């Protein structure tokens, strides 16, 4: 079985990563804080003032371990990668289908089916678990409206209409998202999704989690030899990873949103761990960011039965599994792309 690989997140400012035999050594002020074998890692993510030796970069590239550099607040700066991997014929097929209206529509619909079904599942789960704490009626109505959106989506064949259904579904879902916050209501209030920049604590959490999910999704696509820039639901735009955005749609609700909710509801993050800048932008302090990353990593180790493959996988492997299924569909092994649908 493909082993679940960890991502090493380095948030300590001034840390220096180097290669030590077959291991990564993390040094802070001449003091080795951590040594970990490269073959247990899937990726390394460095936040802020963290540097790496070129030999470690080469070693990681050779072993398929991605290294990304983000700002302290989690904005992407750069990443190190080895030679482009995979099959050029597969990438050609990816581009051909992106140029073909009919294929694009089918893939966009599959991707959105995953997303909307998962948004609905997150709401249904809340109805089941917290019936007494939430506005049952409002959330039930949203669940029904999302079911309606799924049915409508299924009979559509115009990509613009499909993008419209996505916008509607996002509104239905985020309009009741505040109901899912069942603790620390004074500190964590959600009214509307905003991201550039995030203007409140919940949006700040969501944005940060989406950034890490994006990183994992993009790495997985590159690993299976797909071009993360060329998507189907998301149109090409220079500098945007269209396919990574497509593929991460199904992960947003069940993975990022649920981690954000459990952090708040279980009190693993507190209101005082966030800071408001002069411009109104909200960001989190180091301790909060660490708490988010620890919870995210723990979540990745959870085992589930994959609904399509009917096999046990860890959540952390889902990115790779879905990227692989996507490639399989492009190659014609399957008659549709089967997104990960959470129950």
């Amino acid at each position, binding site marked *: *079985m*493909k082993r679940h690989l960890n991502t090493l997140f380095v948030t300590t400012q001034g840390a220096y990563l180097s290669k030590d035999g077959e291991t990564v050594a993390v040094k802070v002020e001449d003091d080795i804080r951590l040594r970990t074998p490269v073959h247990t890692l899937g990726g390394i993510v460095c936040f802020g003032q963290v540097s790496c030796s070129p030999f470690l970069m080469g070693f990681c590239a050779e072993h398929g371990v991605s290294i990304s550099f983000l700002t302290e607040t989690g904005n992407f700066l750069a990443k190190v990668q080895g030679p482009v991997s995979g099959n050029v*014929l597969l990438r050609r097929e990816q581009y051909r289908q992106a140029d073909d209206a009919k294929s694009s529509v089918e893939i966009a619909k599959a991707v959105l089916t995953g997303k909307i079904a998962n948004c609905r599942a997150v709401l249904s789960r809340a109805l089941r678990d917290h019936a007494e704490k939430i506005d049952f009626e409002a959330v039930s109505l949203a669940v029904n409206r999302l079911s309606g959106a799924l049915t409508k989506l299924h009979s559509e064949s115009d990509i613009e209409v499909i993008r419209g259904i996505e916008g509607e579904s996002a509104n239905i879902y985020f309009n009741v998202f505040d109901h899912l916050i069942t603790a620390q209501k004074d500190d964590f209030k959600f009214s509307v999704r905003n991201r550039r920049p995030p203007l409140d604590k919940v949006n700040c959490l969501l944005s940060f989690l989406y950034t890490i999910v994006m990183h994992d999704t993009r790495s997985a696509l590159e690993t299976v030899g797909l071009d993360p820039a060329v998507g189907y639901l998301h149109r090409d735009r220079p500098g945007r990873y269209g396919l990574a955005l497509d593929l991460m749609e199904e992960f947003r609700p069940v993975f990022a949103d649920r981690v954000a909710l459990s952090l708040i509801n279980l009190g693993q993050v507190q209101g005082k761990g966030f800071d408001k800048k002069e411009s109104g932008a909200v960001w989190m302090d180091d301790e909060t960011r660490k708490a988010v990353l620890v919870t995210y990593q723990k979540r990745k180790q959870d085992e589930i039965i994959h609904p399509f493959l009917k096999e046990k996988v860890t959540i952390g492997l889902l990115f790779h599994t879905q990227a692989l299924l996507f490639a399989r569909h492009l190659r014609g092994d399957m008659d549709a792309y089967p997104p990960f649908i959470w129950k």
Partner: protein
Amino acid sequence: MYTEDDLIQLSALQHFVFCERQCALIHIERVWNENLFTVEGRIMHEHVDAAKREARGGIRIEYGVPLRSLRLGLIGKADAVEFHKEDDNWIPFPVEYKRGKPKPDNCDKVQLCAQALCLEEMLNVEIPEGALFYGRTRRRYVVAFDNALRTETEGAARKLHALIESAVTPMAEYSDKCKRCSLLDQCLPRASKKASSYLMKAIEED
């Protein structure tokens, strides 16, 4: 006759005899799962490559010998080639090191025979036999390059070229040997081909 541009890795032949889809995944789709097996295999090979040559009474050994055959369209390396002195001639005797134990199929034998055919073409000699050494059993098994094995090897090389030229990865069919395949997770042989009905289920559910 093939040209130098058409040559395929000798190791692909072993993959091909084991499973055509595994071969296509590695050589067409370029997936490679560096799992424990391949790492251990590589370390063993590196160990073999590290030594250069030895000679002891009546046997010379060369390690990491580059090979190719334009007739079969193959290129690769032999772990080791022993040269056995017979009268005034040194007869090549290829030896391939394998990590595991002898396999039920012929894939290792075919790979070894292909090495012999390369050597025959390059050195213009006839090679009657070679050996497979298995790490798990710590024993070597002598393989005779008889007509049946040669015919099988040549046929496999022809079909291998046809597969790589077609650039189409065959569909998966699950069987017992999938359990000992290092690409099981990249291949997903049991995945259903019908994803559309799975999608429909998600839409119909409330």
